[in-house]
């Protein structure tokens, strides 16, 4: 059973479109995250969501919005896609326990904006 699953794995779309990436975790974790990995493989936090508390990285454009229908899901919506949004997006989850801190990552969703 996949612990953290993301769909789709690959997404190719035109500039200006709106798209969503879904994430589900079956670990019973309290906290979920979205990370963006750019072409240089630099991994940067975008959002974290814990018990309906959303923490947003201030550098993330407001075209990006996370939506959590329940504790096991954190979807990423992107409006008016731009070329610079092309990247691999990783979803992750954790217990939120400071003693372990281990994040469990999905396999990533590669977004290509043409």
């Amino acid at each position, binding site marked *: 059973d996949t612990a953290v699953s993301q769909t789709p794995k690959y997404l190719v779309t035109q500039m200006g479109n709106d798209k969503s990436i879904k994430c589900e975790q079956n670990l019973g974790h309290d906290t979920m995250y979205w990370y963006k990995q750019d072409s240089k493989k630099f991994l*940067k936090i975008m959002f*974290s969501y814990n018990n309906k508390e959303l923490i947003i990285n201030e550098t993330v454009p407001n075209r990006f919005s996370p939506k959590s229908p329940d504790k096991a899901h954190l979807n990423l919506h992107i409006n008016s896609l731009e070329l610079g949004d092309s990247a691999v997006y990783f979803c992750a989850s*954790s217990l*939120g326990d400071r003693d372990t*801190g281990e*994040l469990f990552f999905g396999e990533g969703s590669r977004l290509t904006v043409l």
Partner: protein
Amino acid sequence: SQELEQSPQSLIVQEGKNLTINCTSSKTLYGLYWYKQKYGEGLIFLMMLQKGGEEKSHEKITAKLDEKKQQSSLHITASQPSHAGIYLCGYSGAGSYQLTFGKGTKLSVIP
């Protein structure tokens, strides 16, 4: 803001050789994490270090956190092709569950 510097940025070693990857922080680390990413896959948790001087091992990989908790090293003994990938160190700030990562070290192991 606190940043992590990883070195080297990339590393090519022959199978069987030992290697070390370093991760340096500008400030004291609350928690230091090591992850590995294989091409096209998600990140896999390797180890977490919290205490100054702490050392942990998993199979042929050993990670240490210095006494001042500002530098960590990841050492691989007798490297194998399966060790190839990108190694990332990350830290968590006080009161935060988020991890902030360094830019990663790309490791290639030549058979």
